[in-house]
């Protein structure tokens, strides 16, 4: 096995760092979102939920903390949904020909793009965590240094496997699109249901049954579960809902994301193996 995928990764990271505006925007935008939306909504949500009686033994969590985990998940979703877009530009500008005509196996292209997408997501998620803690998000409460390290590793594991699935999906779509505009349209279409039919910003438990069933099919739900488990804890109370995550729930969430990534890889591989650039 060669390391050609690392070449693809290397080039994508050069571009990421070289475009100062892109770099700046992608780092600041999620933090801004958390700052404005989070702080604005926390006031009202916490007022509503303070009316509901707190069951004995439940740990109440402010909305800002609850949604911070969701913003981390959504940021990962949006970044990775567009993570394969570079392939579309490479295709349109003819750059893909050089790569497809090289002896490098084509799955290396997918892996290189995935690796750089995951790197970008990790950077964003770490920034969000640090920024969140600065503005009052209460993650890792009462945890020791070792426990915090394990929790962060757990979060990154979830972000990584989730990102992998969406980067493969994004790559597959990019390779079939003909213009950036259509890519944009498809991605927006795709992101809306993923965004809203999830438990990222509000509890899915109050959805009507068919929407609840839909959240079970949404990978974002499983990512949020993983992040909340590691960042907030297995048992907490937010937005008048009692959240309990057992280790089995978390394992199931991870396996669901792994399955999603596997299926998306198969789809992307099929697409790139059939790609003809001439």
């Amino acid at each position, binding site marked *: 096995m*060669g390391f050609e995928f690392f070449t693809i990764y290397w*080039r994508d990271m050069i571009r990421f760092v070289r475009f100062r505006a892109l770099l700046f925007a992608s780092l600041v935008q999620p933090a801004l979102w958390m700052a404005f939306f989070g702080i604005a909504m926390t006031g009202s949500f916490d007022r509503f939920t303070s009316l509901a009686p707190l069951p004995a033994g439940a740990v109440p969590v402010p909305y800002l903390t609850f949604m911070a985990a969701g913003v981390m998940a959504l940021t990962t979703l949006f970044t990775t949904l567009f993570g394969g877009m570079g392939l579309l530009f490479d295709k349109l500008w003819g750059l893909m*020909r050089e790569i497809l005509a*090289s*002896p490098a196996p084509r799955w290396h292209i997918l892996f290189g793009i995935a690796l750089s997408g995951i790197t970008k997501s990790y950077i964003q998620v770490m920034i969000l965590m640090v920024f969140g803690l600065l503005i009052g998000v209460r993650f890792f409460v009462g945890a020791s240094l070792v426990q915090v390290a394990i929790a962060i590793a757990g979060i990154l594991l979830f972000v990584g496997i989730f990102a992998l699935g969406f980067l493969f999906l994004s790559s597959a779509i990019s390779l079939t699109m003909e213009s950036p505009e259509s890519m944009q349209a498809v991605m927006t279409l795709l992101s809306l249901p993923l965004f809203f039919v999830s438990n990222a910003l509000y509890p899915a438990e109050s959805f009507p049954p068919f929407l609840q069933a839909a959240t079970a099919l949404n990978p974002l739900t499983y990512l949020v579960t993983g992040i909340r488990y590691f960042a907030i804890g297995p048992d907490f109370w937010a937005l008048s809902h009692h959240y309990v995550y057992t280790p089995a729930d978390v394992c199931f969430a991870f396996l669901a994301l792994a399955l999603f990534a596997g299926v998306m890889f198969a789809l992307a591989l099929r697409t790139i193996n059939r790609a003809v650039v001439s």
Partner: protein
Amino acid sequence: MSDPIIEVTNLSHRFRDTVAVDGISFAVRPGEIFSFLGPNGAGKSTTINVLTTLLAVQGGMVRVAGFDVAKSPGEVRRSIGIVFQEETLDRDLTVREILEFHGRLYSMPREERKKRIDEMIRLVELEAKRDVQVRHLSGGMKRRLEIARGLMTRPKVLFLDEPTLGLDPQSRIHVWDYIRQVNHEGTTIFLTTHYMDEADSLSDRINIIDHGKIIASGTSRELKDALGQDIISLETGNDARAAEILRDLPGVRDIRPGLRGFSVIISGDGGKCLPAVLDRLRGAGIAIVSANLKQPTLDDVFVHFTGREIRG
């Protein structure tokens, strides 16, 4: 004679209902510059795409650098370099990074890669642009960089698809110089072009291709001689009589009246026939006002074989 480095037997390729390549066969010798000359849409790019493994072989047999393209595309890819018709450079990378990316993509070891990058930058004289992003290079420089990239991995064959498309005359000549130099150092060149002068000045052997078929092949000289159309245009004191006495001169194929004077069509080399023509006229006491020899250009060859001028 050594084995051909490219061997194509009965290659066909179609896109839906359109036949792009229609059963062509040819062989390229190691070390030569072999060119496909033809109008846009003649099947040149399709042929190059099949030879470089970018399109699957649909019909026929293709061997490049000793490997069957259909069976061992990986080995073929490792043995060739390609300069594509369109620009295929990442505008955001620097000259060095473009070559570095290519070397890494072909798994070149680090030390060799570094050495080769320096050599290639020197070859195409882009030393001053080493760390400049591609977006700031001129068209000719970009083309030179693409040639350098194609040569990074020391290919046995370099494929050039319309290498000077859209370049200004000076840059074209510059690019031609590099192509000759690279060929001189032992790389076989497979070239496609729709420029007559390009095919004429670079190629050892030219193949005229039209509608997916090779309709003539040979050296530039052979193709022009095959036409037998060297023309001597004459104006004399007495054209009618001059035409009469030249009609039975050896080598004269036909005599046609012109706007002024008349034209003598020579079946062989017109340059060798000219003195005899002039001698005979002087011997008959006919005054010569002007004499002009015109040998066919590759354009004439093209028109002759295809029945029309090159398009585009």
